[in-house]
C-alpha cells in the first residue's frame, strides 16, 4: 500500500533527476535570500551553476546546528515572515532554542510525508491514531497529527503524560495505532498491567515509535507485550520533524528516507569525507523542497548507514539503518534532546555551584532516568538539611523548566566526581548495558 504511489516508487534515475533539479533550484533560492548561505557558498566558491550532477553536492559546505543557533531566531529563514505559517523550536544550549519556520507549502509537504509514513507502517483510513507525541514547540505531536488528518484517519491528540488517562482512552476509544517513544509504550503497557489491563487485548495493531534510539531486542519486547507491529520513525525539527524516514511494515529493515524531498549522505564525522553505501557514519541531509528554512548538507550528528538495495515493499527510496548513536554528546532522555552543556549552564547559573557535575542516565521500568550529581563545596554548604534540599529542588525545577526533562539532583562530596586530564567525563549512560 502506498499513499503516493507515483513518487514512492519512482525509478532511481527519475529520483536522481528530480533531486538534481530541486537541488539547483534550492541553492539558487538560498543564495538569493539567506545571507548566511550567500556567505558560506561564496567562501566555498560555489553557486547554483556549479551544480551539474548530484556528485557536485559534495562541493557544498556543511550546515551545523551552531549555525542555526547563531541565526536565532529568524535569520536562516529564506522567506519573509508573512509567508511563514508555523514556527517550531527545539531546546538550545544556552536557553535559546533552535527555531524553524514553515510556509504553507512546507506544512503541506510535511503532512504528505507523514501520511506516506503512516501508510508505509501499515496504517490506513479508518484507523484510530492515538498520538502520544508531545504537542507544542516540539514537532512530534503536530507533525504526526497533520499526517494522520491528511491520510484521513481519526486522530486523538493525546500528547504526552497522564498515563492512566492514556490507557483509558486507548481502551474506550478503540485506538488501533499508537504513536509515542518506544520506551513510553512499554511504560504504558506496564502501568496498564498494574490496573489489570492487558495491552494485548486492546485493538492496537500498529505502533510508530521514534524520537529516541531503540534496539531490535526492544522491538521484540514491544511486539510481544503490546501485540502490534512496531516500526521505527525518524525525524528532526531542523529538517522537518517526524516523517523524514520510516520503516515499512513489510520489511522492517531500515527506514525509507523520502528522497524526493531530502538528499541523504553518509560522511566520516571526523574528516567530512563522503562514505560509500553500507558504511557507517554521520547522516547529512539536504532539504531540496523546503521553503521556510532550507538547509544544505545539515549535520544531523546521528550515526547510521545507507542502503540503495531494492525493498520488498516496492518503495524505491533509500533506506537508512536504525540510528546507532551520535557523533556528539547529545543525550536523548525520554525523547527529549539534552546536551550536557545545557545542564552545565543551568548549574553555573546557581550561585556557588562549582563546574564539577556528572550526569547518570539509566533506564528503570522502561523509562529513562537522569541523575545530576553536584558537588557540595563550602559556598553552597549549609549545616541545615532543609537548605540543601531546597537547593536540589531549585536545580531540578530549573532543569525541568529550561529543558523539559525531569531529573533528580544528588548532592555529593567535593572531589568525588573524577577529574580527568583533557575532556572531562560528564556522562555515564547505563542504558545500553541493560
Amino acid at each position: 500500500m502506498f499513499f503516493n504511489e507515483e513518487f514512492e516508487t519512482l525509478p532511481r534515475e527519475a529520483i536522481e533527476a528530480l533531486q538534481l533539479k530541486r537541488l539547483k533550484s534550492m541553492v539558487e533560492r538560498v543564495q538569493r535570500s539567506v545571507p548566511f548561505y550567500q556567505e558560506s557558498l561564496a567562501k566555498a566558491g560555489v553557486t547554483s551553476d556549479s551544480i551539474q550532477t548530484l556528485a557536485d553536492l559534495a562541493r557544498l559546505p556543511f550546515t551545523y546546528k551552531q549555525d542555526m543557533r547563531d541565526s536565532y531566531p529568524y535569520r536562516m529563514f529564506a522567506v519573509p515572515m508573512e509567508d511563514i505559517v508555523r514556527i517550531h523550536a527545539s531546546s538550545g544550549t544556552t536557553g535559546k532554542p533552535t527555531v524553524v519556520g514553515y510556509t504553507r507549502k512546507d506544512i503541506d509537504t510535511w503532512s504528505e510525508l507523514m501520511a506516506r509514513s503512516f501508510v508505509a507502517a501499515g496504517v490506513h483510513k479508518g484507523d484510530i491514531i492515538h498520538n502520544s507525541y508531545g504537542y507544542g514547540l516540539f514537532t512530534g505531536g503536530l507533525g504526526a497529527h497533520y499526517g494522520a488528518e491528511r491520510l484521513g484517519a481519526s486522530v486523538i491528540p493525546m500528547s504526552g503524560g497522564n498515563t492512566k488517562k492514556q490507557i483509558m482512552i486507548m481502551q474506550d476509544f478503540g485506538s488501533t495505532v499508537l504513536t509515542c517513544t518506544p520506551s513510553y509504550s512499554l511504560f504504558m503497557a506496564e502501568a496498564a498491567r498494574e490496573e489489570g489491563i492487558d495491552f494485548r487485548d486492546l485493538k492496537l495493531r500498529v505502533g510508530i515509535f521514534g524520537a529516541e534510539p531503540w534496539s531490535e531486542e526492544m522491538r521484540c519486547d514491544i511486539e510481544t507485550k503490546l501485540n502490534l507491529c512496531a516500526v521505527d520513525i525518524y525525524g528532526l525539527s531542523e529538517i522537518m520533524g517526524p516523517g523524514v524516514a520510516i520503516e515499512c511494515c513489510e520489511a522492517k529493515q531500515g527506514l525509507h528516507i523520502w528522497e524526493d524531498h531530502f538528499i541523504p549522505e553518509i560522511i566520516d564525522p571526523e574528516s567530512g569525507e563522503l562514505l560509500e553505501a553500507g558504511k557507517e557514519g554521520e547522516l547529512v541531509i539536504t532539504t531540496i523542497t523546503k521553503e521556510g528554512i532550507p538547509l544544505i548538507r545539515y549535520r544531523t550528528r546521528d550515526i547510521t548507514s545507507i542502503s540503495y538495495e531494492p525493498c520488498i515493499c516496492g518503495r524505491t527510496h533509500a533506506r537508512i539503518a536504525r540510528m546507532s548513536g551520535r557523533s556528539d554528546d547529545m543525550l536523548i532522555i525520554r525523547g527529549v534532546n539534552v546536551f550536557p552543556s545545557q545542564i552545565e549552564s543551568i548549574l553555573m547559573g546557581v550561585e556557588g555551584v562549582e563546574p564539577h557535575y556528572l550526569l547518570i542516565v539509566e533506564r528503570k521500568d522502561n523509562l529513562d532516568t537522569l541523575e545530576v550529581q553536584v558537588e557540595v563545596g563550602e559556598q553552597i554548604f549549609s549545616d541545615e538539611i532543609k537548605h540543601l534540599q531546597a537547593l536540589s529542588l531549585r536545580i531540578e525545577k530549573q532543569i525541568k523548566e529550561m529543558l523539559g526533562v525531569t531529573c533528580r539532583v544528588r548532592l555529593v562530596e567535593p572531589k568525588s566526581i573524577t577529574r580527568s586530564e583533557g575532556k572531562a567525563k560528564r556522562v555515564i549512560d547505563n542504558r545500553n548495558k541493560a
Partner: protein
Amino acid sequence: MHVEQISIFIENKFGRLAEVTRILGDAGVNIRTLSLADTSDFGILRLIVNDTEKAKTVLKERGFTVSKTEVVAVEIPDRPGGLADILQTLDADGINVEYMYAFVERCGENAVMIFRFDETQKAIATLAAKGFNVLPGERLYRM
C-alpha cells in the same frame, strides 16, 4: 557565650563516618558530642570537639566540606518538664530552634542540650534573662 560546632557534609556511603572519625582521632582531636542529620543521599555530621580549628583544618585537607557554626549549650534540670520550660520560654520570644541535640556529659545534676537558633544572640539573652544557665564553649570543650 556561644559554642563552636563544626558541620561536615558526608555522602550516605559505606565507611564515610568511620573515615571522618579516624581522621580526627589521628590528629588527636577529641569528640565531645555529635549529632547526625541524614537524608537518603547525604548526611550532615555536627560535632563539638576539643579543638575546633584543628578539626576543621585536618578535615579540609582531606577534601571534606566543613563549616563552623555557632550553637548554644544550655543546662537543663534533669526532671520532667525541664526541656519544655526552655522551649516555652524561647517560643514566647519568637525564637526558632533549627535543630537541637543532647550533650553526652552531665553538668553536675543537670543535663546539657545543644541548640542551633535562627537568632543566636537573641536566644542567649532571652535564656539568660529567664535564669537559664548558658554554658560557655570553653567548659564544653574540656568537659
